[in-house]
């Protein structure tokens, strides 16, 4: 009925629709090109020879792709050590933070206890605190207890449920689970620890996966804290090494090697994102609507 209200257009609706969809697709593809082109350039450069990568004449894709740079990185004991350092720091920090965040979120969502609202408010207020406020004094303390030069300052603080945003996200998710679950279990004689570990945690897998990925990204990319706390080269994590790869003294940089190392650093991020993107994209949207 409503269609009668419009003038009959010159070009049929279907054609106009197809045309505008085509334009939208073109724009979407252009956007994707924009997103991918640094990654493309990274891969392309990593497959070039030194001369090709540094030549003023640009080749989009090397005439003869070389795997030399990758072989060089992957057979170098130092690079393997840097990889294992990054994996160690990220793995331990993510595990400790995730478990403690899950425990605290459980307290803030499934148990009624006096003081809960006060502490919840305090927790949210730390969201406003820039990390720099605590960076300086924490350094002084870690220096005093001889932790500077070890991995401890990068990893241990997370064990105390570091990251108010993660607690908040997980709490929101746990609030959505039906109350009857824990009540039934508690009446049957289970204690809170059992309810948390055997009932709530398995149901939170999507939220835990998301927060795990956020934590993984934060630690894998982290540059500032390792720069401050790690002092010996054999303890460096990947970002610290890569950030210092360019030697301003020389004119010709080993770009293929730098890009191969960078590509290998990016791969874990891309793979993890690929397998968890569904959960992640959902919860990113959630932070905005709840916040």
């Amino acid at each position: 009925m409503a269609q009668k209200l419009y003038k009959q257009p010159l070009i049929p609706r279907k054609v106009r629709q197809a045309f505008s969809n085509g334009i939208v697709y073109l724009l979407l593809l252009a956007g994707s090109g924009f997103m991918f082109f640094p990654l493309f350039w990274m891969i392309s450069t990593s497959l070039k020879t030194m001369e090709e990568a540094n030549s003023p004449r640009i080749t989009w894709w090397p005439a003869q792709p070389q795997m030399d740079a990758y072989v060089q990185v992957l057979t170098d004991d130092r690079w393997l050590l840097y990889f294992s350092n990054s994996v160690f720091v990220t793995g331990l920090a993510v595990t400790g933070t995730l478990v403690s965040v899950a425990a605290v979120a459980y307290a803030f969502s499934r148990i009624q206890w006096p003081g809960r609202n006060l502490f919840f408010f305090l927790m949210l207020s730390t969201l406003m605190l820039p990390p720099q406020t605590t960076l300086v004094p924490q350094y002084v303390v870690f220096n005093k207890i001889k932790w500077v030069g070890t991995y401890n300052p990068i990893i241990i603080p997370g064990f105390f449920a570091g990251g108010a945003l993660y607690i908040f996200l997980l709490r929101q998710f746990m609030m959505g689970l039906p109350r009857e679950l824990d009540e039934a279990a508690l009446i049957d004689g289970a204690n809170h620890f059992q309810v948390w570990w055997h009932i709530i945690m398995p149901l939170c897998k999507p939220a835990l996966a998301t927060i795990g990925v956020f934590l993984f990204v934060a630690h894998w990319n982290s540059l500032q804290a390792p720069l401050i706390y790690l002092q010996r080269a054999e303890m460096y994590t990947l970002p610290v090494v890569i950030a210092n790869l360019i030697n301003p003294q020389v004119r010709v940089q080993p770009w293929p090697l730098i890009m191969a190392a960078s590509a290998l650093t990016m791969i874990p991020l891309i793979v993890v994102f690929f397998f968890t993107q569904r959960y992640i994209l959902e919860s990113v949207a959630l932070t905005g609507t709840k916040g």
Partner: protein
Amino acid sequence: MNPKLYTLLWAIGTVIFILLSSLAVAAVAKAIVRRRGENRLYQSRTFAGYFFASPWIVGYFIFVIGPTLASLYWSFTRFKLPDPPQWIGLQNYIQLLTADDQFRVSILNSLYVTFFGLPLQLAMALGLALLLYRRLPGEQVFRMVYYLPVMLAANAAMLITWRLVLNPNNGILNTVIRMIEDAVPPLVFARQVVVMITEVTNAAFIGLQRGDFTLLQQTLARGLPVPEAMPLWHQSQLWSKPAIIFIGVWSSGAMMMIYLAALCSVPTHLYEAALVDGASSWQRFWRITFPMISPATFYNLVVGIIATLQIFEQSYVLTDNGGPAQSTYFVAYYLWRSTFRFNKIGYGAAMSWILLVLILVLTLIQFRLANRWVYYEYES
């Protein structure tokens, strides 16, 4: 001793410490409510609640409250490790706010990126969200592609790749620009205009920052740049901040997701009514969509301001320690530099307090202004 084994042992020790301290906190809390004469159920809930929340409560005192108070005290002292702090009153703050040129430059640079970069990021995010909102087949894939840069952007590996991409001579970006211009020659003039506007704006900004306008005079004297003049990105002080903004725009996928969620929650009957009244798509966007998604804009703005004030990796990796000519000194970078490179603990503490106040003030202004333009549907 192997550093990994050392930290692993400390980690195990920390877990034991957390468990014991949680038990202690929970026991104390329970004892207090029992003293008050509460029933058994209430007591056990108190115990469980404090037990589970304790990792955060204990951590809050060790890693937030303690350091914050210490930092407040140290900001009034001269403190160089390993010497003990020396009380000097407000001297750090006076020095920072009146005499430290590098700090003033850093603050102004941070504000520059906030005021010029954030609107561009928002525009990009909203543009992409509007494209995705069509729900065309394959939308999921595009969503993924647009979000991916958010995960990669802060990594040093990505930033070093940007150095290569943005290289003014044989970088891929300027090459692509030249290619497009070869296909569409009138764009050369457009680029010249953009180059001139950017360089004049940046030269004027640097002039205001330093109180020395010779750079601006030189730039203006050059007039419209020669057709060969390309953006110099991280290698020129007139282009280094635009380069950082460019990377920010590249990674605006998180804001896009927020916008997309907001777009999907706009009730369709509003659009139908407008269509019946004969509103154009332009009108529908500015009169319906834009006001209805204003809470998302607000959220993105608040989070974005806090994020731009934290910029560090870009200065360290992309522009080689805040260069050229300190044009990418930002607050967080300068704080790190003077505290940890030059061991000025008290000075750094004072700076972190100024940063905190700056964030609070900017956020407060946001919330004040929000009444005028943010529309919440469930408000009466």
